[in-house]
């Protein structure tokens, strides 16, 4: 004969329910405080732009041409990334200018802005070969700090950029290869991962 009440029907203690509710509140707050509008497909597009730039830059001989190719690439990649970010945020109904979106951008932009005067100082002192390492390191630092408010692959991507930057700084002859591997390869690899796991 089957018992009328199985063990699963025992009442859940009040404190267990209370702890479960508190855990739910904490997890919901943490989840909603994560910036999920990082555009995976946009990053893949940025990576392709960087690969094209590295191919063009490798065929130039003059330092000025090399610099202009990479500056053009940065501007184009920035526009592609910004448009993709806006589109993904709009589709998800996430605000970009308030809350976690603002924190994400505030984490990302200062190290990138710092790259402008540092690049100028290095060029003025004839140290163009150090640019690749500095760009990769600063971009990586921005991605790591912004990634604190985003999904897990983002800070990891930043760390990979910083490693690439350190290698490019230690071996300046590999600068072009590291720029292609970093801005091209890492963007494409992590962008594809983010697009697959976090919806576009």
């Amino acid at each position, binding site marked *: 004969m089957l018992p009328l009440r199985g063990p699963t029907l025992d009442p859940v*203690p*009040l*404190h267990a*329910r*209370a*702890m479960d*509710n*508190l855990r*739910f*509140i904490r997890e*919901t*707050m943490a*989840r*909603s*405080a994560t910036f999920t509008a990082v555009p995976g497909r946009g990053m893949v597009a940025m990576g392709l732009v960087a690969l094209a730039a590295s191919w063009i830059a490798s065929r130039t001989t003059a330092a000025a041409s090399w610099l202009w190719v990479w500056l053009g690439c940065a501007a184009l990649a920035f526009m592609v990334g910004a448009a993709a970010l806006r589109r993904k945020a*709009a589709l*998800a*109904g*996430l*605000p970009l200018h*308030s*809350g*976690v979106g603002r924190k994400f951008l505030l984490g990302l932009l200062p190290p990138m802005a710092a790259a402008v005067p540092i690049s100028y100082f290095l060029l003025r002192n004839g140290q163009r070969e150090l640019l690749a390492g500095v760009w990769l390191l600063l971009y990586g630092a921005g991605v790591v700090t912004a990634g604190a408010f985003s999904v897990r692959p983002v800070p990891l991507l930043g760390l990979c950029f910083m490693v690439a930057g350190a290698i490019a700084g230690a071996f300046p002859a590999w600068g072009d290869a590291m720029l292609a591997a970093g801005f091209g390869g890492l963007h494409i690899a992590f962008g594809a991962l983010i697009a697959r796991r976090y919806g576009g």
Partner: protein
Amino acid sequence: MARAAATRARALPIAEPRALRLDRVIHERVRLGMLSALAVHETLTFTAIKKLLDTSDGNLSVHARKLETAGYVACDKGFAGRVPRTEYRLTTAGRRALERYLDHMEALIRTTREA
């Protein structure tokens, strides 16, 4: 065994009345999730909340209306281009209600631990 039963019996008169005073508007999972998310953001759109709580349009609409009726959230309807956009924000009453609910849950846990 008998001691544990006595302890439970002593604890019940404290826990029960508190349980009865529970804010039923917040106690439901979707409504609790909505208030928790809005406690971290100034505003959130209907779409963002729906995605975050992994729920359906109809279910979220019903629960959002209950929170609105209780005065815990305020709703602004507008357009983003041609697309309708519904934004929610936590009211002062909603924030206080969430704080009371958190105090309540903590008190329940504390009472059980002390007992």
